[in-house]
């Protein structure tokens, strides 16, 4: 996978994940291209596009478009499943996720993504595993912050 973008119907970017090193300028251009291309599509059309030498798979969930770019030898139908799986993970975490959840908690959305995909490949194929890991990391964050307070600023080591 090359990149994953989430944007709203108005073309506002909600999440961007790049799996290859690209300059800032290139990124902005790609975002512009993607939003124009995808938002111009008819409602019940095919979810696959060809763009330069990449395949673009996009799916609309409520008011958000999920746009994934893969290389030519990858399986498009599976990419659709990847997008769906990510939506399911977000749903489980936030409970009936909506766009506002992703706007106000974007860093959590990234953390979940980083437990599911890594380096452009799928990391974990089990939903439950991903959820468990996210919960554990969150717990760790909580524990650590309270722990710090009780130690009155003494640097604690893990």
């Amino acid at each position, binding site marked *: 996978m090359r990149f994953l973008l989430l944007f709203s119907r108005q073309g506002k*970017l909600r999440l961007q994940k790049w799996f290859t090193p690209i300059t800032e300028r290139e990124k902005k251009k790609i975002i512009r291209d993607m939003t124009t291309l995808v938002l111009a599509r008819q409602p019940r059309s095919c979810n696959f596009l060809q763009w330069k030498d990449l395949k673009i798979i996009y799916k609309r969930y409520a008011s958000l478009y999920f746009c994934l770019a893969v290389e030519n030898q990858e399986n498009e139908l*599976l990419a659709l499943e990847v997008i769906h799986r990510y939506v399911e993970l977000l749903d489980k975490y936030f409970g009936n996720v909506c766009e506002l959840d992703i*706007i106000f908690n974007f860093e959590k959305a990234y953390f979940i993504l980083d437990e599911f995909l890594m380096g452009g490949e799928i990391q974990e194929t089990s939903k439950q595993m991903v959820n468990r890991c996210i919960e554990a990391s969150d717990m760790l964050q909580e524990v650590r912050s309270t722990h*710090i307070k009780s130690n009155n600023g003494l640097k604690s080591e893990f």
Partner: protein
Amino acid sequence: MSPSVPLQEMIRAIRSARTQCEERGVIQRECAAIRAQFRQSDNGGRSHNLAKLLYVHMLGYPAHFGQMECVRMIASPRYSEKRVGYLGAMMLLDEKQDASLLITNSIKNDLSHSNQYVQSLALCTLACMGSAEMCRDLAPEIDRLLQSSNSYIKKKAALCAVHIVRKVQDLGELFVPAARSLLSEKNHGVLHGAVVLITQLCERNPETLKRFRKTVPDLVQIMKGLIISGYSPEHDVSGISDPFLQVRILRLLRILGRNSESASDAMNDLLAQVATNTDSTKTVGNAVLYETVLTVLDIKSESGLRVLAVNILGRFLLNSDRNIRYIAMTSLQKIVGTDHNAVQRHRGTIVDCLKDQDASVKRRALELSLALVSASNIRSMIKELLLFLSSCPPELKAQATSGIFIAAERYAPSKRWHIDTILHVLTTAGGDVRDETVPNLIHLITNASELHCYTVHKLYRALLTDISQQSLVQVACWCIGEYGDLLLKGECQETEPVQVSEDDVLDALETVLQSHMSSSATRGFALTATMKLSTRITDNVDRIRSIVSIYGSCIDVELQQRAVEYNALFKKYDHMRAAVLERMPLIEKNNSGNTNGEATRETLTETNSSKVAQEERVPPPPQQPAKQTYDLLDLLGGASEPLQQSPAAQTLPIITSSSAGGDLLDLLGGLEPTPAPVTPAPSATVYEKDGVTLTLSCEQQSDSSLAVTLTATNASQSDISGFTLQAAVPKSVQLNMNAPSRDSLPAQGAAQLTQLVMLNNPNKVNLKMRIRISYTRQGSAFQDMVQVDSLPGLGAAGHT
């Protein structure tokens, strides 16, 4: 986890801004506050500040001042800060930034941390933005982690290793033993990571590929386990057990079985089992089936299995889900060359997909349909394609027209059918055809001498209906000019004759001349046609004379020149008029003679590169018309073909019309003049690579000057655009390169490119040439150089 309140407040503030200006104000204030906070020492709110900055960054505002803060946060002992710090590193730092090197040490420390979540942060960041140096530094660590007992860490280390192998290919060797042992894991996450890693290693190194072929039985076992096993809640997706892993294993099997009989044999049973047992009602099942089909078609499978695979694709084609139909056509396109008959069976369905609403499906259907055209189905296929053309989306028009032309040329059952088809295309989509269509059609018409009468009647009728399609009008004018007498005679066997009077014909031509829809080239055609009629009609020669003299003061320089010359023909050279304007002889079709010099209309994917290429080239000054004015008796115009380049076909039509026959002796009418050397010059192939062939032929023009023709063809499967040639010769030799005939090379040798190079060698030195070839194929640029040490055909002329 409690949300970050400061972050949420800021997001709310930004969102409530009503205008862009207001938003920018809010963000500037926030950024200033963040910068101030960064400068302060640890205050417990650092992670909130960085999170705020990352949000601002996502909105598109600059955030580079946060880079150092990321580095500091990563080094912090607090998990919350590390987490946001690493996220910031992934978003703000990439391998091009200098600050990224600073986190190498932190990553190294965190990789050996006692807490697995900290380790995972480090692994994730390394896999996301690790540069080559970082990868080299940390590869041994990753290898160690691959052998740890913690499967959570193992699976992440595997993907990290994948990234390392991508960045630094040589390190692949390091991971081979670990990868091999990971295949015996039970944990799906680790297994998946292992399969991905092995795939990467095999793709990059054929030696490793051979070694991993031995793992095929193990992979087959794992797959069997997945298919046969019962419901497993952890990994089930709509009845399929872990489809992600299944697809990856199938892909690895494909790579392993590709050129190996034994490996392919070992997986035959499994593939058959997957193909028959997978439930295809949901997308997941179809994803697995799709991957299976791709694998079967790529390895050396037995014929029964191949038939099964093609049948699955056929079933996909009938699926109501557009996505499935789309991928079915994509796969069929890949095998249409090898399993042509199998694909032909589904031709009906494919042709139906041409009528689908969706643009992606239409595109695939068009490509596949064009590939399926053959001598036996040409008539019905072209009928369908012409129907498609009338309702075709504009971005596909150019591809469709050129495809129809190529197919028609290859398999035309009769000349009349061929001409009809081309005319039909021109009436429907005349604006999107390639520019060599006009001369090609004219050539075709000239050669079908028995159909001259039919053709001219048809074209005349077409002209009366609609004069907006420039190519059609140009051909029509040319024909009327040439065969006007047949038109006036009124009798025709093949089509209903119309009584046409000379006035009617001249009216029609005058309409074209005066219409604002006609381009300058078209008007040139019309004027010449009018002139030619002066020898073919009897009564209205005066009318012609007056038309011609009116245009003698036309603003358009090209028309004015023609009119003046024709006037001269009436006045001073009236005795020659009949001879000059007589019927054209049959023209030798010069295959490389797409020498109109115009830029051809590219398909969507090639447009950008071709536009850039066109802008770089400067059109050489049009010297031909002036020269040819005085060469009244020099029948072939005496000069090389007018290879003027027009940047865009519409903006400078003057040049094209001059090449289209602006010389007085318009013997070649609308056809571009063939290159001067009529005798075939000896040629040699000087370059052949990736399907691109370059041949060179020379002809001695005079004692010291030499005309070298470079011809390029593209025999590969993909189109080439932006094709340019540059040449260098020894110092004392003068080089003059004319513009090439085109700048793109369509696939499979559909058209050739010629470029004429004039060399002047007064000192008679040893002639050598160095040619640089550059082009773009599928979005990537290629460049190559070839040295020609001896030019062919120079044997005895005193040049050694």
